[in-house]
């Protein structure tokens, strides 16, 4: 019971923490932080749709195929803001290629009741690379780590995608697993997601002390 309340209500509702923080500080938000706020709003809607589909006993797996496309879009847009126009164009091309791959995967490869275990881990790996490149770039900044809002956002993204990579890879196996295993894995996933929301909230709160990060 407690587990169900935690997974069904507490964690999805926790998205309101960063969203409300972001809305409160909206005037101070930089472009990358606005992308993150809109991503959170999108994620909130996706959560509501997911929970509604579960309530009406629909399979939610197709939702994940569509969700991955938008998730990758938002996060790529976030990281693209730190690079020069030339590099931004490469990221846009990557978004287009990934979207096509997701559509092909959904229509022709993983078109049954199954998760997108080919494209989601690929997405996670690309995002981990984005995140590592960002850390490399931030190492040159002459600022306290905690004062930079982007560091908190990046930490949230890296922790979530790296930790859940194994889960993304094996999610189809989990469909056939017992209740206990599913509860442990999804419980862990939701806890990491909660941590990501908290880190995002700190990032969106810290935007007032934000400095301009160089683009190169």
């Amino acid at each position, binding site marked *: 019971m407690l587990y169900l309340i935690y997974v069904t209500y507490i964690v999805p509702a926790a998205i309101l923490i960063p969203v409300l923080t972001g809305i409160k500080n909206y005037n101070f938000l930089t472009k990358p932080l606005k992308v993150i706020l809109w991503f959170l709003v999108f994620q909130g809607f996706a959560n509501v749709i997911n929970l509604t589909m579960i309530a009406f006993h629909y399979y939610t797996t197709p939702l994940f195929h569509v969700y991955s496309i938008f998730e990758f879009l938002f996060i790529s847009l976030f990281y693209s803001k730190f690079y020069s126009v030339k590099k931004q164009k490469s990221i846009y091309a990557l978004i287009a290629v990934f979207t096509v791959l997701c559509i092909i995967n959904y229509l022709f490869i993983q078109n049954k009741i199954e998760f997108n275990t080919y494209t989601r881990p690929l997405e996670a790996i690309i995002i981990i690379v984005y995140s590592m490149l960002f*850390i490399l770039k*931030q*190492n040159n*900044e*002459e*600022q*306290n*780590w*905690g004062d930079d809002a982007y*560091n908190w956002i990046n*930490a949230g993204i*890296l*922790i979530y995608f*790296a*930790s*859940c*990579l*194994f*889960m993304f890879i*094996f999610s189809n*196996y*989990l469909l056939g*697993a017992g209740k206990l*295993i599913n509860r*442990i*894995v999804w419980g*862990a*996933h939701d806890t*990491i997601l909660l941590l990501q929301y908290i880190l995002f909230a700190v990032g969106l709160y810290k935007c007032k002390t934000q400095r301009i990060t160089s683009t190169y």
Partner: protein
Amino acid sequence: MQNTTDNIYVLVILGMAGTFLLVVSFIFFSIRNQNKLLRQRQHFQQAQIDHQKELLRAVIESQEAERKRIGQDLHDDVGTTASGLRLLIEMFKPGDDVKAHEDFTQSTKTIIDKIVKDVRNISHNLSPSTLRYYGLAAAINEHCTIINQSGKLEIALVNNAEQALEKLPLQTSTALYRVLEELLNNTIKHSGASKANINLNIVNDMLHIDYADNGKGLTADVELVKKGMGMQNIESRLLNINATYLLEPYSGKGFHIKIESPIV
């Protein structure tokens, strides 16, 4: 292939836990590293600012000392002699005595000559005309000759950079002249040395000045010496012309400094 009995779900959970730990530690170390670097940079910058302040303080203090010295020279030499002259003129009562008149004329001339000489000495100290008209080599030579003649110190000057010194911009030659003047002053005042050597050479388009004396030398702590006003004055003058210097700490064996200055 042998069938494995591993439970894939346990492996997933272990994988997630392991990666989570790895990523969190990575972020933690990255934070620690970045903050440590930041602190180091801040310390370094602070040290640089402090050093600049010290140099500025030394420049201001030396300016004040110079003003005080000029004031004292004017007061003690020119001022006193001029007062004496005034008194002499006041005391003089014109009469028919030709001898007394001649004596008076002679005395006033002597006093005026002294004033002229004093003024010339003061202005020479302020801005040596030899340096302006005949270059650094002549100015150093002249200064060394004056000191040698005074018997306070025996200076051996070896100049292997005659041509290069002629091409030096006035700003550079003035700075180098002042530095050598300061070094010679230090030797006379503090070192108790009887001899000093000045070698001027050109190596790889750089003017190398080797200055050494046989006095008591520096204390072992070079940093302490660098904090002294005289050395800071020297350093700020050298910095201004992009020159570098190296102090050799060998206490008891005399003082030795190597200066490298770009010619152009």
